[in-house]
């Protein structure tokens, strides 16, 4: 490896791009720490900045990932194809397209020439291979562009030497270097020469914002054609030779154990069955087809041991959370106040592609394929489980059919590794939908108490206390050290991570005087995991409901009330945009109403205005939605729009009908016919997203941003349409189905 030069850096992030000895151009980039930029606050009864205002979780991830080496790798093939190796997971959020855009922008090459490949698990990246916290574009925007800018500089230098003219006289466009006399040389033809470590290369810096031609332009997904033709390969579509279908019979209660299997011989003799393997999590069947594996799984006669949550049902959980909620500080003495308590049910991540993995475990090595957002800790854990050195375990990250937080964990990969080792053959392990819904993981149930005191047109204090079933953060920051810390006795480690995450993500955007937040987590034995927007969907959603109730108490319009208490013009701009485009205040029939809400997180902000029709109590429908969003610098407005509509859909589902009933240690819901995820008939026919023009030089987070404001807007619209206070979510939570057998 030859050090070339430190690239000129204009932002606070410093980093180094190095040339790799290779026959064609190959660069790797090392990242280093970025200074934090506190935001100023000013106005009404000022609230002190909350921790999340100063250092949010994304900043922590950026810092945690800073010292790792060789974060990114870019190569140029002889045919001009640019390959970019990305240490992240694509689950539908459009990250690979956004990264390809950054590369194409800085290299001046057509987007179609850029291939973004998901990196295998690389433990040397430490904290820098975790996909989450809406952090990927935030953390990669600078390094990706600098890597590509350095590659461009080398290609230009190679052309300059070939032609014997100064590099400064050359330009680049369409994947080629051009000389003033009209000569051109494609990048592919220059790649070998550009790889010469003796080549003199001037310092390279990414383009100025005003020179961007692709960044900021609405762009279609690079994988769209593969998806509409069925060519996109997900984990279970991979052709791994000899890998046989495998499903697991799971216990009748969460975390239950296998005591004995009464009919092992009979099941082994069933058509197509190849093996039956007892696991810590159930009994696995390996067969020639999934159809046969499912039949054999159903035929298993198993005696089960108890799990940790066997006696828990919704009423018990709710009572425990209510008892655990931290106390409010401000006694309501002389000023009027709003008091409100909220309950949110457990919610399944429910990605379309259920948990799955392919594993090929041999005595001396193992290879795993799965959709993984924390592949390093997966690799380290599986290696330890198999008793293999980490370098004998390869973990391939496969593009996944949704995640919403679910794929931070690697439950299926670990199971597949265990089965493959036990039966001595490669397996393709798939969770059934019923198991995926019932055995989790889940967004934890929460209970909230909020008290806001007001007087003389000002809000004097705003207190929010949350009790939550414990969220499992035992994936750590994606590698084994923090994951191990999270496993420390009595949940101390996990609790510390939970508190850190809560206080670095949850903040009020309003000047509501003394503003405080507190969280208490209750271990329940129910498998949980971060769910899109983690604490904010419930926490900020509930706060936006209280904001409407404060407005009503003080005789103010909900939009104008928010406007008066928001902290800065950027916030007011998105609120104004949503209100104007959504025609806030327009007359609607009785039983229909508008609702509006605001949310700021990940250095981004959004406002959502919805209209709801509650006239048919059997089918309450959000009929219209207008969303305004400001992410500072939108890389791909088309992808951003998709993320916001995704957040809206999450909010429609979880606010109105989608939740899990826990009954004696197991959810009743087992499929989408019972866990009522929104369908086309539940989705507004009129949805508009307004992406505010770039107002900064750095992109904020976008993947999770849309949920909390939409939760608040829908709940507020429902309240105005029905005259009832929304307090328990989902609002319509009847058991209107016959549960599947346990």
């Amino acid at each position, binding site marked *: 490896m030859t050090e070339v030069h430190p690239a000129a850096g204009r932002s606070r992030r410093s980093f180094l791009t190095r040339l790799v000895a290779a026959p064609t151009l190959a660069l790797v980039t090392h990242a280093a720490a970025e200074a934090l930029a506190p935001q100023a606050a000013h106005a009404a009864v000022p609230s002190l900045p909350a921790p999340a205002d100063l250092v949010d979780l994304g900043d922590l991830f950026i810092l945690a990932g800073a010292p790792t080496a060789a974060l990114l790798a870019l190569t140029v093939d002889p045919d001009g194809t640019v390959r970019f190796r990305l240490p992240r997971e694509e689950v539908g959020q459009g990250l690979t397209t956004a990264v390809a855009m950054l590369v194409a922008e800085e290299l001046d090459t057509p987007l179609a020439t850029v291939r973004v490949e998901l990196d295998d698990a690389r433990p040397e990246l430490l904290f820098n291979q975790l996909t989450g916290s809406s952090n990927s574009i935030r953390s990669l925007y600078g390094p990706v562009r600098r890597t590509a800018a350095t590659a461009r500089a080398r290609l230009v230098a190679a052309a300059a030497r070939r032609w014997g003219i100064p590099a400064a006289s050359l330009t680049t466009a369409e994947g080629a270097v051009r000389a003033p006399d009209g000569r051109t040389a494609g990048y592919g033809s220059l790649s070998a020469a550009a790889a010469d470590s003796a080549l003199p290369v001037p310092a390279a810096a990414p383009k100025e914002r005003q020179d961007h031609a692709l960044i900021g332009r609405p762009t*279609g997904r690079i994988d769209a054609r593969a998806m*509409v033709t*069925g060519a996109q390969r997900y984990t279970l579509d991979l052709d791994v030779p000899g890998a046989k279908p495998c499903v697991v019979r799971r216990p009748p209660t969460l975390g239950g154990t296998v005591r004995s299997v009464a009919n092992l011989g009979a099941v082994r003799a069933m058509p197509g069955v190849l093996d039956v393997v007892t696991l810590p999590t159930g009994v696995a069947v390996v067969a020639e087809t999934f*159809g046969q594996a499912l039949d054999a799984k159903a035929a298993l006669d198993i005696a089960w041991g108890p799990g940790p949550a066997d006696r828990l049902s919704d009423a018990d959980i709710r009572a425990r959370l209510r008892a655990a909620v931290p106390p409010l500080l401000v006694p309501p003495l002389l000023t009027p106040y709003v008091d409100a308590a909220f309950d949110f049910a457990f919610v399944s991540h429910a990605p379309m*592609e259920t948990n799955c993995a392919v594993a090929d475990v041999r005595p001396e090595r193992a290879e795993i394929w799965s959709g993984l957002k924390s592949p390093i800790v997966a690799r380290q854990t599986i290696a330890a489980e198999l008793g293999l050195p980490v370098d004998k375990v390869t973990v391939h990250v496969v593009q996944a059919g949704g995640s919403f937080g679910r794929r931070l964990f690697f439950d299926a990969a670990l199971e597949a590794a265990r089965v493959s080792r036990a039966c001595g053959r490669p397996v393709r392990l798939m969770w059934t939908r019923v198991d995926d819904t019932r055995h989790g993981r889940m967004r934890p149930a929460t209970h909230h108490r909020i008290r806001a005191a007001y007087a003389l047109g000002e809000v004097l204090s705003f207190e929010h206390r949350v009790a939550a079933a414990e969220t499992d953060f035992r994936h750590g920051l994606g590698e084994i050290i923090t994951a191990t810390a999270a496993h420390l006795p009595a949940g101390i480690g996990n609790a510390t991570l939970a508190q850190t995450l809560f206080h670095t993500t949850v903040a009020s955007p309003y000047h509501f005087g003394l503003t405080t937040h507190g969280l208490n987590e209750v271990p329940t034995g129910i498998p949980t995991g971060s769910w899109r927007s983690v604490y904010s969907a419930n926490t900020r959603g509930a706060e936006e409901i209280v904001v409407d109730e404060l407005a009503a108490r003080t005789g103010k319009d909900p939009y104008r009330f928010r406007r008066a208490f928001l902290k800065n013009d950027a916030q007011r701009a998105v609120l104004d945009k949503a209100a104007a485009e959504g025609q806030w205040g327009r007359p609607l029939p009785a039983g229909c109403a508008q609702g509006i809400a605001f949310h700021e997180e990940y250095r981004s902000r959004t406002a959502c205005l919805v209209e709801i029709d509650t006239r048919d109590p059997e089918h309450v429908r959000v009929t219209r939605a207008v969303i305004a969003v400001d992410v500072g610098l939108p890389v791909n407005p088309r992808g951003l729009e998709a993320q916001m509509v995704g957040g809206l859909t999450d909010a429609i589902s979880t606010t109105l009908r989608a939740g899990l009933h826990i009954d004696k240690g197991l959810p009743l819901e087992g499929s*989408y016919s019972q866990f009522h995820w929104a369908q086309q008939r539940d989705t507004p026919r009129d949805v508009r997203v307004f992406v505010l023009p770039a107002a900064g030089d750095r992109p904020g987070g976008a993947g999770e941003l849309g949920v909390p404001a939409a939760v608040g807007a829908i709940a507020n619209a429902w309240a105005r349409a029905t005259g009832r206070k929304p307090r328990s979510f989902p609002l319509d939570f009847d058991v209107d189905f016959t549960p599947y057998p346990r």
Partner: protein
Amino acid sequence: MPLHTFTLNGESVTVDAPDDLPLLWVLRDMLGVTGPKYGCGVDVCKACTSHLDGRDVRPCVVPVSECAGRSVTTIEGLADGDRLHPVQEAWLEQDVSQCGFCQPGQIMAAVALLRRTAEPTDEDIDAIANICRCGTYPRIREAIRRAAARM
């Protein structure tokens, strides 16, 4: 095991499989046709939606024996070589896909709808019950409208 012969994406195939084996597993595990996805196995999520003699069905609940002598079309058989079906084109123009897992089924459901009715109403589109966990529904609606206008 019995032999079953049917037409798959224009070509005759014969498989040796139990009568009651769902078509989904015949396609995916025996024939390597992976466009139709497993999402629930009980005709709820409809991610596997494909066509049997031109009508939309869910292969997860269609026994292979029911396909004998009939024509099965999966997402792989929708385009005419490199020329995409107008519904696929509309999907690209609207950039519908997010995770993409449900989209083969969504597209096959939309094609079947447009075969039944050339000018689908909003209510017709609402009646498509295929789940999209990512929430691409508004773009699906617009893509179906665009495709209908073109066809």
